[in-house]
């Protein structure tokens, strides 16, 4: 066998070896858990499945989850666009610090987020007297912790940088020449945004919104610290936790049934992600 052939053979062996490791690793770590959720959810039959995902608790949790997600996505999209515009179209002192501060929620344990809101708005928090005074004055009964507003706020916090992080690199790469050219011709801020910036960042904005949605739907730790009433302030992940923790065979199956909703949403999100990336790559 010649040197060349030996080399080819060794190359092929490496290839087969690496592919085997990769496939085995990904199948064991990703595919099996994925299939297992779906399989577990149907263990007690399809009738039970439907029943499990339509209980009063689940419907209430779904409502809270959707509410928190929609608000988080709206707030963070608005914030993300403002932050991206600010950080990519202007230079100013402290820009780098601001960019780092915006990314903080990425690196913080969700449990600490819950703690931070308790320390701010809870009974011991410094903002609590303000809320109490407000309630006394207006005769309202607004509560933040252990109520819907706390759940929403925590969701907004954990997803805070998701949109901005996706659009900032794109806008940076596109440069600000086009905006300058338009401004030079007398275009106002809104016209520039609508006609020039928005088309530039369209796909990354959609991608950021998708990621933000995924994270908001699944938030658990932060919400767990701020929400205690099942059927009122629980989100879907909390409901899954409650079902799983009650420990009976059927409630565990019910937990998986509810999980399957979120798994299907996750799969749709992955599909959308790949679709957008594909489009983006083709365009460039």
């Amino acid at each position, binding site marked *: 066998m010649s040197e060349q052939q030996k080399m080819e053979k060794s190359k092929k062996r490496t290839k087969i070896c690496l592919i085997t490791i990769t496939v085995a*690793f*990904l199948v064991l770590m990703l595919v099996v858990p994925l299939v*297992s959720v779906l399989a577990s959810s149907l263990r007690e039959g399809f009738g039970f499945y439907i029943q499990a995902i339509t209980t009063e608790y689940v419907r209430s949790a779904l409502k809270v989850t959707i509410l928190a997600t929609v608000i988080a996505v709206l707030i963070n999209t608005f914030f993300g666009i403002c*932050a991206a515009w*600010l950080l990519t179209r202007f230079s100013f002192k402290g820009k780098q610090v601001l960019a780092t501060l915006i990314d903080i*929620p990425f690196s913080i344990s969700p*449990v600490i987020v819950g703690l931070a809101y308790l*320390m*701010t708005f809870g009974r011991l928090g410094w903002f609590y007297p303000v809320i109490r005074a407000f309630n006394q004055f207006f005769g309202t009964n607004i509560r933040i912790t252990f109520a819907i507003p706390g759940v929403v706020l925590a969701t907004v916090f954990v997803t805070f940088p998701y949109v901005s992080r996706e659009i900032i690199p794109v806008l940076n790469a596109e440069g600000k020449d086009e905006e300058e050219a338009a401004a030079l011709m007398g275009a106002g801020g809104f016209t520039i945004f609508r006609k020039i910036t928005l088309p530039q960042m369209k796909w990354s904005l959609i991608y950021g919104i998708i990621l933000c949605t995924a994270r908001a739907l699944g938030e658990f730790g932060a919400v767990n610290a701020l929400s205690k009433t099942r059927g009122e302030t629980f989100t879907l992940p909390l409901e899954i936790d409650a079902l799983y923790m009650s420990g009976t065979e059927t409630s565990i199956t019910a937990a998986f049934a509810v999980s399957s909703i979120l798994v299907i949403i996750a799969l749709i999100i992955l599909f959308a992600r790949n679709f957008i990336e594909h489009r983006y790559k083709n365009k460039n």
Partner: protein
Amino acid sequence: MDDTVKNMAKSKNTRVIPGYHLTLGIVVTMLSVIVLIPLASVFMYSIRISPREFLELITKENVRNAFVTSIGSSFLAAVFNTVFGLIVAWTLVKYEFPGKWLLDGLIELPFALPTAVAGITLSKLYSDSGFFGKALAKAGIHVAYTQTGIVIALIFVGLPFVIRAVQPVLEKMDGQYEEAAFMLGASPKKTFFKVILPELRPALLTGFGLAFARGIGEYGSVIYISGNSAKNHTQVVSYVIMQKLSYIDYASATAIALVMLVISFVLLLFVNIVQMKQSQRTNLL
């Protein structure tokens, strides 16, 4: 000349693109209200704890153990993910095989899947009656409710970081490096260790740092598989904070949280420095 200097100080820079003050106002306000003020509350509260009390709170045995467990498991999981992440990224970039697109598309599943769902699923799979657990139990290996279980859960949540950091770098290398090294007579092994690996190091370090940081703070995916027993050292830090919160022991919760915040900032700084160095280097090229 004096006049000139005075004028220089006076004149402000006009910005041609509109919206600077508006967006600056919005960004700073929202950032403060949603992120900075709540976080500052944690710091404010912890200032009220005396240093001695603070030290006592964070050096209690179960707290110490939780830190060791969290940091140790996250480190192990991150190392594991770095090695396998490199292999997976390499395979996905360099080779073609059936079903590749599906696996490639699934890499981000841990990001898209709610952590609680991941947690209960892994817990079930690795419990002694589960799909993997049963087989492993026969071999005398127990995963669920042990530290091994924690590491497995952290491998799951940290899996995409290294792969997604390395993949684009490998794609850009487009075989030229390898060919150049090969023409100079380097063996494939030598090429890999001397040429390719150094090129990938910043990406590997970034992925490692992010996976590590994520692991230390992880809650949802860990608590079901970990068993949360102080005796068996299977409590993670996030769990301990949550436990203190439900006992309304805010002093302990805050003290532990503060240490965690410091650790995650250090890791974030590490990742930023790696990335800055990398961009400096590429700018020079």
